[in-house]
């Protein structure tokens, strides 16, 4: 019972509406779509809908409308056939309208797999500058179709993309904020404040941005070059101790 309910749960999203559910029931029962055993199919349909309801799933109104339709067709089939209307030689089967809708729906549903195939194939093709925006269709925007709304939509698209690409956004800041000179002054001031200097690793505060690491490294190299700082490393890969060179008094 539980497994039955669970399998239904998994299958639930697979139904694209009442027509889809009906078609799948008809296929499963291996009956002729033009001669639907309406009582049996209605029973199965109602059982499915009731199961959803018993599982507290919100059943869309469309499924309930279809349930009512099925019950109505069933009851009409039970009634004795009305006398044929004058001038009408064919007797309308109460199922005809439903069958017509099912067939019509199936026509379109059946090309979906074809479209899926085309979609997959197309997604394996890449166009020029696809790296910038792989989802873009790379079509020019027709001038006539453009107005302020298009522009607003474009901005929103760009901003949403930017919201996702946080790292890229924040990476722009440092370019103009820090200079080597500033960093050198900062390092030197810190080293001068203590007789034993500081460890090279002490300068890195987590989280540390890449540009800060590079800048710090360059600053230390420059200070070493101009002879304002001394570096001592006890053995390979050990931490480097930096000390400020005492200025001649």
């Amino acid at each position, binding site marked *: 019972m539980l497994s039955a309910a669970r399998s239904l749960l998994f299958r639930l999203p697979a139904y694209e509406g009442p027509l889809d559910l009906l078609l799948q029931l008809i296929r499963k029962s291996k009956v002729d779509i033009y001669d639907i055993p309406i009582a049996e199919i209605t029973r199965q349909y109602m059982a499915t809908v009731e199961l959803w309801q018993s599982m507290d799933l919100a059943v869309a109104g469309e499924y309930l409308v279809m349930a009512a339709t099925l019950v109505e067709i069933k009851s009409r089939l039970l009634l004795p056939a009305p006398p044929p209307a004058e001038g009408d030689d064919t007797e309308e089967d109460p199922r005809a*309208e439903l069958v017509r809708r099912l067939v019509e729906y199936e026509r379109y549903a*059946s090309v979906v797999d074809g479209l899926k195939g085309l979609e997959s194939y197309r997604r394996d093709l890449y166009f020029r500058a696809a790296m910038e925006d792989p989802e873009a269709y790379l079509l020019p925007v027709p001038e006539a179709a453009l107005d302020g709304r298009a522009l607003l939509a474009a901005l929103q698209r760009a901003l949403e993309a930017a919201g996702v690409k946080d790292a890229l956004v924040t990476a722009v800041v440092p370019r103009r904020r820090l200079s080597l000179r500033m960093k050198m002054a900062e390092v030197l001031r810190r080293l001068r404040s203590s007789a034993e200097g500081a460890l090279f690793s002490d300068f890195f505060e987590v989280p540390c941005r890449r540009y800060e690491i590079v800048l710090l490294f360059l600053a230390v190299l420059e200070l070493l070059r101009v002879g304002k700082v001394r570096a001592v490393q006890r053995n390979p890969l050990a931490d480097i101790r930096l000390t400020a060179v005492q200025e001649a008094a």
Partner: protein
Amino acid sequence: MSQAAEVECLLFVAGEPLQLADLARAMQCDPMDVEEALRELQVELGARGSGLQVLAIAGGYQLATRTEYADTVARLAARSDSRLSRAALETLAVIAYRQPTTQPEIEAVRGVSVGGVLKTLQERRLIVDAGRKATMGRPILYVTTQEFLHYFGLKEIADLPPLDDADVSAIVGKVAASAQPAPRSGGADPQEPGTAPQDDAPIGEASS
């Protein structure tokens, strides 16, 4: 200098589908010469085992990578998996084969409401609003776009896989001769997507 190389340069720099007329103007030659040059280019690309190919897509011509190289390219240009849902594909199918068509008509075919799906498809520029139908309520008419063709790698609407028309009309005749108006050419024929909407012809009992 060869015309094949010229056309290659143009397709390369454009990065979007170019029409024969655009190419002919830039190459200062006849559209037929352009077609010849396109064929030559395609042959040359194939002969030297190039990673590129010429595609006839969305009403024009465009250079694209071959599918064999999709994995390599994907490692460089990561894309999110934003394929269309089945609901979106079904809705698109109805629009593509019946265009121009309206929300009530689509809902009649699919048996579910499609407002949200239509909005998504419009945002992705796969369908577009093409005026209003001259029936009660004046519903918006939807048609597919060039982007739709591009999304599915089609040159034109006629390239869509055929909806099995003959079969269906035979079936329709059998089960519901009285329910279906005479098979019309407008909506169901994928060859003529541009056929003017026959106003207020009851399209497939949409209102039933």
